[in-house]
């Protein structure tokens, strides 16, 4: 069975882009019961549309129902779970054993266990399987040894995060947000206190203390993970941009496909793309049991806003394309367009606004720009700065 590439989707547009750029499945949240309460999220109608779209191209949609509910929320759950079944979703992702139990007794939904439950060993996996879970999303704290031991001693499907932001704590064991901002971390309201600066009292220095972790990137270990029969490789980030989703998914798609085509390799450009699209450094974190000082930020950290993303292709006309601007570019710039399977370099020699007024620079976010070209492009191809090998 080919390893699944699983991508996040915060809304329908992101879902379509994730699938278009090579994800085998996406995970999404509904407007209730999802751990990203402040993402755009999906109404039931949109979930229905999402599954219809995905199934048409033989891909899957999983829906997160992964908050830790209080009593008042549990009363709404049965109907919601039945609605999800009616939407024909491929699985739900849960953290709470009560939610799991309701889903088992009222629906035929397939059940995956969220990383929020911090599953780290084979005994826990066996228990969760025994109560009806088919897939376990492992805690990001698992090392390679832990993952291999689980895989070798259980029959559950195993899903591992391969890319994106990390919690500083064990998922589910941090309520800093509850006590510092009154926002419930285990019901989707996390206010990311781990990114705040604190003073550590012993030291009267100007060096702040934070809990802030670097991001995860498993780009160098994909072969390893597929060799160990991991069922699904998961990308974090339901609140990330369409450009981020397209860039990250397309890189991992290529690496996974190369593995199955006996042509496994990771080129420097792909690493550079992942590096540029993130706003924090990325490392392999707990996989190699390395969680020393290089995994954290403590001071003078800058989250750099990415400016590689120049525009998105919105329409293709006979002799020109219509772009929507995201970052500054100008005549004479060498850029590259990328789509799900190809990258084409291009020099901008002429561009106009929507009313055909000539432009020397594109400097207004979301401005529509027309560029004359006969390149073979599609809507939702992206234009970015050239990333060198």
């Amino acid at each position: 069975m080919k390893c699944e590439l699983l991508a996040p989707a915060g809304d329908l547009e992101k879902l379509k882009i994730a699938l278009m750029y090579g994800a085998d499945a996406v995970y999404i949240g509904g407007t209730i019961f999802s751990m990203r309460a402040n993402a755009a999220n999906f109404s039931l109608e949109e979930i229905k549309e999402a599954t219809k779209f995905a199934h048409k191209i033989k891909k899957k949609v999983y829906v997160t129902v992964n908050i830790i509910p209080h009593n008042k929320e549990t009363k709404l759950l049965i109907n919601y779970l039945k609605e999800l079944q009616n939407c024909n979703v491929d699985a739900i992702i849960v953290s709470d054993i009560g939610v799991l139990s309701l889903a088992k007794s009222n629906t035929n939904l397939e059940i995956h266990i969220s990383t929020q439950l911090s599953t780290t060993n084979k005994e826990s996996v066996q228990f969760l399987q025994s109560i009806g879970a088919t897939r376990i999303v492992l805690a990001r704290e698992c090392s390679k040894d832990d993952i291999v031991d689980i895989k070798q001693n259980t029959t559950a499907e195993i899903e591992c995060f391969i890319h994106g932001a990390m919690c500083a704590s064990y998922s589910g064991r941090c309520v800093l947000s509850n006590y510092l901002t009154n926002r419930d971390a285990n019901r989707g309201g996390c206010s990311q206190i781990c990114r705040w600066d604190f003073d550590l009292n012993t030291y009267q220095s100007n060096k702040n203390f934070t809990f802030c972790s670097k991001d995860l990137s498993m780009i160098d270990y994909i072969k390893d993970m597929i060799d160990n029969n991991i069922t699904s490789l998961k990308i974090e980030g339901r609140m990330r941009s369409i450009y981020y989703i397209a860039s990250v998914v397309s890189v991992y798609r290529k690496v996974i496909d190369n593995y199955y085509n006996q042509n496994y390799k990771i080129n420097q450009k792909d690493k550079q793309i992942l590096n540029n699209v993130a706003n924090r450094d990325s490392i392999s974190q707990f996989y190699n049991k390395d969680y020393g000082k290089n995994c954290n930020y403590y001071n003078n950290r800058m989250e750099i806003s990415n400016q590689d993303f120049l525009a998105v292709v919105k329409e293709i006309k006979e002799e020109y394309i219509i772009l929507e601007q995201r970052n500054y570019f100008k005549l004479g710039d060498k850029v590259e367009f990328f789509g799900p399977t190809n990258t084409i370099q291009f020099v901008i020699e002429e561009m106009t606004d929507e009313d055909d007024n000539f432009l020397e620079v594109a400097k207004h976010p979301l401005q529509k720009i027309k560029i004359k070209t006969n390149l073979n492009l599609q809507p939702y191809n992206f234009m970015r700065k050239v990333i060198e090998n």
Partner: protein
Amino acid sequence: MKILVMPTTSNQYNLADGIIIGIKGLSVNIPLTIEIEEITKINTEIFVSLNKNMFKDDLNYLEQILVKLNNTNIKGVMFYDLSIINISKKYNFKYDLIWHQEHMVTSSLSISIYNQMKIKAWVSNDITLREMQEIKKESKDELFACMFGYLPIFASKRPLVTNYLKTNNLKGNSTYIIHKENKNYQIIEDKNGTFVYTDFILDGLKETENLNYEYIILNSFSIPEHKFKEVVYQFVNKKYDYKLSNLFDNLGKGNLYQNTVYKVK
């Protein structure tokens, strides 16, 4: 109602009806962890909290300890990691199991599912008093709740303080306080990771009167011994009108009267 103490020293073993202790290597956020051999010397009702997240390398030791505990007179084992349920199923241990995923025990629904597996619940401090009372009304089994002490609010596998010290070429010990907006949070690091506690001491003395849980837990972590003794006395003797503010100036009610929010847009 029984009062359980989480002691810091053996002097506190007999202050109330029982104690909660940890076992070295398998417990976190527990003020006193001991070697299993010492348990037989303790003469009170004992609960053992094995609440660490367990990894491959912990499992053999964990199983050995669970088996050894079955040969003692402990009343129950409190757990975070679900591996403990699976291991227990193989042996059918005589002691009780108590679900204590500290921030996840928040609904009657989930508690009832664990109750069906003959597992009791230690209810979270992240819900309101009213929600705790509702759970009591709907519960068919014994319930536990902590009503006094600093509350754990963060647990990481990472050695965050050590990483900070190394990054900045500083030397230190193991106990620190982090500050934010005039509030102080204790941060502790040990070989299991890094842990943070609330800036306030939960004062649930008055509320205990109307909670009606079978077990009320008092945590001695970072509380001076003589003051803790006084606190336990008030709970044991049901002096619900006593003002703990006579003893402490950083008391708080936590979430007892404050519902958290999660949708802000």
